[in-house]
């Protein structure tokens, strides 16, 4: 793997880790206002 390849893999990894962290944060902070986690929530009906 050349330097560019390593750089791309690092960037993809950072993006994935950032997404996973934000997913976990969102789950704990907004579990009741996210259609993804709970289609029965207040915000979900508002959004729809």
């Amino acid at each position, binding site marked *: *793997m*050349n330097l560019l*390849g390593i750089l791309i*893999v690092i960037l*993809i*990894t950072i993006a*994935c*880790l950032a*997404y*996973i962290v934000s*997913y*976990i944060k969102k*789950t*704990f902070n907004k*579990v*009741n206002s996210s259609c*993804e*986690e*709970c*289609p*029965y929530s*207040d915000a*979900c*009906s*508002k959004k*729809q």
Partner: protein
Amino acid sequence: MEIKSNLIIGLAGNPNVGKSTLFNTLTGAHQHVGNWPGKTVEKKHGEFTYLDKKIKVVDLPGSYSLTAYTEEETITADFILEEKPDVVVQIIDAQNLERNLFLTIQLIELGAPLVIALNMVDLAINTDQKINIKALSELLCVPVVEMDARSKKHLGSFMKAVFEKAFSDKKADKIKLTYGTDINDELGKIRQFLREKENNVTEEEINWTAIKLLEGDYRAEQKASNKAHYSELKLLVKRSIARLHKICNKDINTILARARYGFIKGLSEDVIGRHTISGHKKLADKFDHIVTNKYLGIPFFAIVAWVLFQTTFKLSKPLMGWIELLFEFLGANLTSLMATWNAPTWVSSLLVDGVIGGVGGVLVFVPIIGILFLLMALLEDSGYMARVAYVMDKFMHRIGLHGKAFIPLILGFGCNVPGIMATRTLPTKKDRLLTILINPFMSCGARLPVYILFAGAFFSAYQGWVIFSLYFLGIIVAIVMGFLFKKFLFKKLSSPFVIELPPYRWPAIKGVLIHVWERVWIFIKKAGTIILAFSIIIWLLASAPFGVDYGSQDSLAGSIGQTISPVFRPLGFDNWQSSVALMFGFVAKEVIVSTFGTLYGIDDVEDGEGGTSLSNALQDNFTPLAAYAFMIFVLLYAPCLAVLAVVKRETNSWKWPLFMVGYTTAVAWIFAFIVYQGGNLLNFG
């Protein structure tokens, strides 16, 4: 008179009368509706425009009365008292008019600007009731309109009644309910006292406060306790209660309830015309005798569940095969395309092993998720699932659990998050906590792909039976754990509960399809987001450090897996791949399948016997007994992050989610151990 440009409408009513359906019809929202009580556990807001007026609709939780016994009743009463909506629409199930009128009486007592929407009038024709709508409206002094909550058929007359109520004089004719001379006298004394002592309160508020104080409603007492004259008022109420008790020799709630039911009985006699019971009703009654029978009910449910799983597999198998072929085709072509372009090997590996292996491995299960949810939604909407709750209610009472707890458990089959939220319908904090703690044992949709993958690889001739046994085991473990918690952790639980049996009806196809699509879309979205992210991370862990063979035990993933795997050795699955899958599956259960897909790859073509390389890889690493123990572990071990988050929120503490992780994982380990070691002893290995 002031003409407002915006209106607020509250939708109130008994559970399962069509509030959420009407809410969806009015606002175009897609709130989940079901043919059983207790779906809506908190207020939902929506908006729509009608004749240039912006109308805010609030869907209130179903409640039978406005006394502060349960959270639903408190939410409804607080909304009417504090937010003062322009109109409160009570949706009444025309088939059960008498029962619904108990709430009507209380809404009238509360002085709510009431409009009654009579729903399911067409179904009432199948019963022995024909309602005289005009007489009902005149006797209650409340507008009553016929409404079909599922369609916009009577929307014009409904909205006309709503507008007339919203812009009418609020002091127009109102019915005066009488409770008998003795109660009226005592109520009169309290009302008089409140009139003298309190300013800026309406006559309805005075009336409501007087009744609620006599009933011993804690919310009314709490409100009164902030006032300067509280001790005087308290003494007055205490004397009134004592006097009534002396005269009637009954407790005050019984006396008031009798007075209200007396009014309802008289009213019903005047407005309900009886005719002969229809063939539909007779048939429904006969069917109910079987499905709610104390001996036949549970076996019947078991047969229905078995048929449900068998049908799901039979219907989804060809569809799954096509999607599998599509991803195999994609994988093979991408590999050759990359080779043509002279792309580095790692790019090809990332796309084929990581992305297609992980995400594709999960998307294969879309048809089975869709079909299972479709069949479950049909059963739910038809009214059968409420019968299951009824049968289980009796059973759960017998072992000392709260019967109402079974409804949140059934909801847990879809997803444990709404299941846990539905525990709000339970009356006490201990009941709720207990039901929350056992809910994750109900096998949610996210665990299904794991079962299908393993059952397909190891028990292809008995797939339906194997998965049926896992769902059933989940129910049994939930009930056993509930019983143990009740015995050792939450002693002295309440409480009597009567579950109603909604009438059978044809499922609302549009609503069912919307619900199924929502579940499938959540699944697809997860595959494209969190599962994709995890697949790439797992690919990286399986590729690093440089120079190791992809997915070998020398890789980082291999090292992590080998560190954990001794824990699972007594359970029969100590291969490092399953340890990594279980570890990441803690975030979302679907990740277990995508991890196997990434680590083993699905890019190879099918073998001669129709199995895929993933199935073959699993067969190389598990014995059938170990595979079954693995499925049991997945069924019972720590719930996903979303469930823990909702438990944290509902219990307002970290203690219970952490306890849940610990005890469910321990239970999972013990059960998997018993099955694997027991199976080995019996030579099933």
